[in-house]
């Protein structure tokens, strides 16, 4: 394997890029740290330190005079990218990729768009909502939940694009879900309002974040665990308030 001692800065750039993509795509904190350290080790830097929180990455290499920091502003769930970066890191560890090749490939991954269109996602959210309503309370809830869940998810995506405040988008989307569900029940399309709302709100629920938060806490990443917990709590609270508001109006 060739050595890269004169290219330490490029190696640091590569590690930071890999970490940034992973963290922005919803990779776990410990996986991001692990991947960065492992990439550095594969290129001949055995002692590097990575400190990751959900909002930033700090990365330093022993005896190098500058520590790098990048800020993570936007987080979403795009597990395909996490898998791709993981795959690239695996190939680096096996010595299959050179530094430049790896950087090139990571750049391509970063540019990649979501592999499903918005409409496919809305359809998926709608079907998932319908199925959840059936799981919780029988077939009579399928159709109204399909409508409310799809509309709620679409609203969430649209508002989230317009205003970059996630909690507001979630609040408003669940407000719409609740309103639609109430209208549908009132005109006799659905039977059980509670089950319809629970099913339709499922695509917005921060299930992944809650679980990742507890997992990070148990792995000893206290800061990451707590901040993810706060994110999950705020999201759940936004959804709850949206539903609460529409229920108390109606």
């Amino acid at each position: 394997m060739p050595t890269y001692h004169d290219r330490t800065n490029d190696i640091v750039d590569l590690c930071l890029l890999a970490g940034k993509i992973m963290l922005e795509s919803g990779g776990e904190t410990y996986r991001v740290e692990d991947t960065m350290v492992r990439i550095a080790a594969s290129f001949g830097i055995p002692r590097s330190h990575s400190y990751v929180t959900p909002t930033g990455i700090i990365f330093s290499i022993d005896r190098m005079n500058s520590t790098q920091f990048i800020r993570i502003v936007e987080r979403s769930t795009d597990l395909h990218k996490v898998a791709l970066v993981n795959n690239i890191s695996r190939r680096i560890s096996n010595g299959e990729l050179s530094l430049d090749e790896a950087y090139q490939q990571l750049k391509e991954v970063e540019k990649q768009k979501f592999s499903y269109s918005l409409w496919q996602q809305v359809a998926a959210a709608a079907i998932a909502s319908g199925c959840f309503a059936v799981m919780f309370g029988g077939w009579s809830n399928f159709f109204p939940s399909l409508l409310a869940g799809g509309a709620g998810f679409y609203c969430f995506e649209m508002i989230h694009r317009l205003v970059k405040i996630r909690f507001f988008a979630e609040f408003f989307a669940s407000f719409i879900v609740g309103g639609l569900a109430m209208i549908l029940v009132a005109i006799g399309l659905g039977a059980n309002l509670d089950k319809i709302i629970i099913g339709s709100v499922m695509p917005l629920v921060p299930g992944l974040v809650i679980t990742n938060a507890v997992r990070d806490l148990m792995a000893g990443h206290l800061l990451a665990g707590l901040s993810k917990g706060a994110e999950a709590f705020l999201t759940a609270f936004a959804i709850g308030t949206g539903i609460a508001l529409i229920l108390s109006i109606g």
Partner: protein
Amino acid sequence: MIVQQLLTSFIASAAFGIIFNIPKKLLINCGFVGMVGWIIYFLFAEQQINDVVATFIASFFVAMISAIFARIYKTPVTIFSVSGIIPLVPGGLAYEAMRHVILNDYNMAISLAAKAFMISGAIAMGLVFSEVINQLAKQKRKS
């Protein structure tokens, strides 16, 4: 009844895979993981077994199957476990808790919220347990 649960939980979990942008060829696996998790939970819940225990066992199996798939397809475990645990998330309880807040029945709201919290913890504990077992197995294979 059980066929209906199997079918809907499979479709719901696979559809969640689309929301999380999981590669197309793995969606079937995601659906399978979610289906197994939900059915385990459902069968235990029907036997009047405590929700927390049922959720714990279900999420343990979700994580175990996910780990096996992850090894076969050489991808991160999260890809499979994320859509697997979604059906177990206590959305219903959280909703009930919120509804009692509106009714000014804070005692009920807090006890429901505590239960939702315990179930979230049970999901996480199930994941952690299976991870520990996997790590032990890995150490054994190495030595």
